[in-house]
């Protein structure tokens, strides 16, 4: 596959690894905030190939993991309704809510369906005018334009039986929350390449200046990650800070302007709860007033449903890099992928699930 296979080349990857080894002279802690990048690191075994001086922390880059507990409960409440076709990406189906998950709702008769694209959900709404179609709109800035377009189109076409349950989160506020937290150990960031393809990377420049850290926009294939790590380490070793772009084949500094335009029209920035971390101001997206008709929370009256997290789950500290999954007393015994206590153990990109596989390696 073009633009994929060449970035999985073994010889080139080892060249990068050797360059990293030659460059690094002392320990550094880097964080990636992207479930897709976590996935590549685990899948290709990159963590084990890196020199021991480099510690890679898996940050809150998994939108599945950071979707607040009460939002799962609201999703479950809506999905249970007989008049609803509840559509979602596959990632969300196994995430535990307060007492159950969407897959179990399906097992018990709920009409829960996996879709590939939010436009498929709009189509379902058009084909089923007597049912309510709800789409679980989860994601970072990468997915937000797709979700926005679905709402925009539904609105323009008068598809009144389509609504979204919005769980959008923004990366820069999360990075700031991590960097400003006491005890922060993260010294450099790999920024999520596809988030930046949409939003550009100019938003990271003030962060890099304020906290004097390197941030490298990085792609998703093994060679991209190794190259991004190399660039970050080079900056650290040379005492430089700022933003650099490893993923230049897909990312430009301003980002994708047409996508940003639709985002502005459909969404507004809101405060948002991050599961395990708590509230981060101005870190989420909610539908603008004109599109209120398509807001499932209001439509189905579930906005007041609240939930209490299992206090034992350390996902917040883990996602901020303050503690390792294996340091959690529940890890591997009470909390496993089969019966997870918190979200990072469910999603294959979650830090705990990733560690679960490593630890047994």
């Amino acid at each position: 596959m073009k633009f994929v296979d060449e970035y999985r080349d073994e010889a080139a990857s080892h060249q990068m690894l050797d360059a990293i080894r030659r460059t690094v002279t002392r320990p550094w802690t880097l964080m990636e905030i992207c479930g897709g990048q976590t996935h590549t690191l685990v899948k290709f075994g990159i963590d084990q190939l890196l020199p021991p001086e480099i510690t890679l922390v898996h940050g809150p880059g998994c939108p599945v993991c950071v979707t607040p507990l009460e939002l799962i409960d609201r999703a479950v409440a809506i999905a249970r309704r007989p008049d609803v076709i509840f559509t979602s990406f596959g990632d969300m189906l196994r995430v535990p809510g307060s007492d159950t998950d969407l897959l179990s709702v399906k097992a018990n008769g709920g009409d829960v369906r996996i879709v590939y694209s939010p436009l498929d959900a709009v189509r379902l709404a058009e084909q089923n005018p007597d049912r309510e179609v709800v789409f679980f709109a989860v994601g970072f800035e990468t997915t937000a334009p797709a979700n926005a377009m679905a709402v925009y189109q539904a609105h323009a076409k008068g598809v009144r039986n389509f609504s979204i349950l919005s769980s959008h989160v923004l990366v820069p506020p999360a990075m700031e929350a991590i960097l400003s937290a006491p005890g922060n150990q993260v010294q450099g960031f790999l920024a999520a390449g596809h988030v930046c393809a949409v939003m550009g990377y100019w938003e990271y420049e003030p962060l890099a200046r304020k906290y004097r850290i390197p941030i490298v926009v990085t792609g998703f294939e093994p060679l991209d990650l190794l190259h991004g790590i190399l660039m970050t380490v080079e900056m650290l070793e040379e005492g430089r800070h700022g933003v650099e772009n490893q993923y230049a084949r897909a990312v430009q500094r301003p980002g994708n302007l047409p996508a940003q335009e639709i985002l502005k029209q459909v969404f507004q920035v809101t405060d948002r709860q991050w599961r395990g971390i708590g509230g981060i101001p101005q870190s989420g997206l909610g539908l603008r007033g004109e599109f209120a008709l398509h807001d499932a929370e209001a439509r189905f009256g579930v906005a007041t449903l609240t939930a209490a997290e299992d206090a034992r789950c350390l996902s917040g500290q883990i996602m901020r890099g303050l503690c390792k999954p294996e340091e959690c007393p529940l890890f591997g015994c009470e909390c496993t992928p089969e019966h997870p206590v918190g979200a990072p153990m469910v999603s294959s990109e979650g830090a705990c699930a990733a560690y679960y596989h490593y630890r047994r390696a």
Partner: protein
Amino acid sequence: MGSLLETMRETPVGEFASEAAVAAAAAIEVPAEIPATEAPNPALGACPLPMDDYPTVVMAHGGGGRMSKLLTEQLFFPALGNPLLAAFHDGSVLEIGGARLAVSTDSFVISPAFFPGGDIGSLAVHGTVNDLAMCGARPLALSAGFILEEGFPMADLWRAATSMRAAADAAGVQIVTGDTKVVDRGKGDGIYINTTGIGIVPAGVEIAPTRARPGDVVLLSGSIATHGIAILSVREGLEFDTELRSDSAALNGMVSTLVDRLGRSVHVLRDPTRGGVASALNEIASSAGVGISLDEARIPVLEEVRGACEILGLDPLYVANEGKLIAIVSREVADEALAILRAHPLGTEAAIVGEVVEDHPGRVFLRSRIGGRRVVEMLSGEQLPRIC
């Protein structure tokens, strides 16, 4: 048992049954009684499966992964238990009158019933023929049970049935008995088929997951994940345009040649259906108490299958196959095994993909394309498409 063999003896050797198969069946002396299994244990009491976890059956219990295994081990074994069942192989081999009779059963619930490259009928024949072949048996005969939903079109039923006949002919077996039930509209998915098959395991053949030994070589008969992806391409919500067709096929011919030429050097055969290659290898590693090491770069995958897996976020190692086998053979015959597979029309893309090792017993590890290492876990439930 007796009546089946009588039926088979009476069936003229014609275009449908191989002479050798019927002769083999005729040569068996059936004992007056088949030894009974142990009487059920009255102390068993309530179901041992942790009910608080799963008070009801969920889809993952049929996924072919860890939860399927759990259901079998923790509910069915204790309820039905006997040593033969506990061997946990796709088929069971019964010693009867000095011969070894293999028995296997499989149910087919696939939707849609007709898909690129096959249909539920041919799949039902191939699936059980293959399960028998994976025991090292020469398949002889199948039964076919149909559960039909009221309203299922007769034309589709005819299509499925004639497809079964064609598949059986090609595999050299006959469907000799069957049953039909009809359920109310809404109580079935159009058509469900169960096939049960019997076959004879020739002398000098010992194929079981427990025979895998450190030093053995792991082969795949061809590219993986094609069936599962072909099905997804027509599944609502995920459909995409492709020329891909299911690889559904009967493997008994290929297995015969392998086993005739290599005899006891063939240790394990498994067709990686639901749960994919990853689940099958995990089961084998676990049964035999050995480790298995895979080399990702050597695992054949069609380009289009890769493309589909990439956009859906699926790992081909966990996607179903219906016309491929895993063969674990002793090291000395590895090259010959590869040559035999490649010489067969269904095995042209066969490859050596790994080996059995002493390390990490019960676990499967993979060397990634770039030389890193990762564990290949048993799937928990079904693999779901992802965006992240």
